[in-house]
């Protein structure tokens, strides 16, 4: 078994494996995002995001990534995409919106890219 299998900084370009290292780093952020399963939590967040960040003890990197709604920065700060999807949902951003943002494409161009892979 190769040791690289346990390294989140893999050689797969544009990919971060969410492993123990990232899980440790992102726990507070992911816990906050997990809370967004509840509609009341989503409302509470939108009413005062900064207070909600503090409630879950986010670090500054995580807070800034949330303020910027920057998915790559959220991932770098330890965010796991399954939980981040709930954060994105608060702002009505779907998986194509966040795909477009991460790849630096327009949403239309990103959808086009998906369609082309079916050819």
């Amino acid at each position, binding site marked *: 078994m190769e040791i690289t299998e346990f390294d989140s900084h893999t050689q797969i370009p544009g990919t971060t494996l969410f492993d123990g290292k990232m899980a440790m780093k992102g726990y507070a952020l992911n816990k906050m995002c997990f809370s967004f399963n509840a509609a009341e939590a989503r409302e509470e967040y939108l009413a005062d995001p900064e207070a909600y960040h503090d409630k879950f003890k986010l670090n500054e990197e995580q807070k800034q990534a949330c303020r910027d709604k920057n998915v790559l920065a959220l991932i770098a700060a330890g965010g796991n*995409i399954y939980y981040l999807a709930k954060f994105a949902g608060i702002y009505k951003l779907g998986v194509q919106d966040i795909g477009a943002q*991460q790849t630096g494409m327009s949403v239309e161009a990103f959808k086009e890219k998906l369609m082309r892979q079916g050819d």
Partner: protein
Amino acid sequence: MAKIIGGITTSHIPAVGNAIANESFVDPYWKPFFDGYPPIREWLHDQKPDIVINIYNDHGLGFFLDQMPTFAIGAAHEYINEDEGWGIPKLDPFPGAPELSWHIIEGMVADEFDITSCQELAVDHGFTVPMQLFWPGAPHNPEMPRAIPISANTVQHPIPTLKRALNFGKALGKAIRSYPEDIKVVVLGTGGMSHQLDGERAGHINREFDEMCMEKIVTAPEELTKISRHELVRQAGTQGTEFLMWMMMRGALSEKVTPLHKNYHIPISNTGAGTMLLECID
């Protein structure tokens, strides 16, 4: 004795739940996907299984990172569905089959698979979308069997190996077949196929790899166990690891199976969507 009549695979993309709610079945985007389901529904209508084992992966509804089971088996009288964060109307509870659940848990732990038993489990789209696809109107379709959800961790590495997933399925199959009641059981493997939601590689889909998997899983699932988890991520994308559920399903079936139906379509949402119906040979 209980009998496993076959296995079915399907992707379980959340957008499908919306498309079902909007009845977008003949919409040009959705038609090639939904066309893959009527032959499977007919087979289910003819076979009328008593129990469905629904192997899926939770996406952050039933489990969080505080306690993350690698393999979890539902042992509840019913399974509730809840808001996953997007405010989609929740479905009514799905009836369970706890006596069989506990039989499976006993059998698998005796077989040295250390699993987590769940007497309460909220099931997400990974479980509900396939139920709705195969039994329209679920959970209120009268032909919908009682369900046992089994969830494997693909949220956080280390995830199980493909070999472990296949062997899990074999132990599951053995446990089911040793149940003394004459019931018919169908096993679902849901999720996949290739897709990646996160990172600069978001939007990655791999038709060639998916098609290879769909072929090998019928005739030579053991060969697929040679794929490392790292390689699975490279080929199928970070969320393409959901293919593990297909391996678990396959392990529970007879060694030889008859592939009765197959459909593959790119893209549904960000995903290569694959559907298969494999009938067990006695």
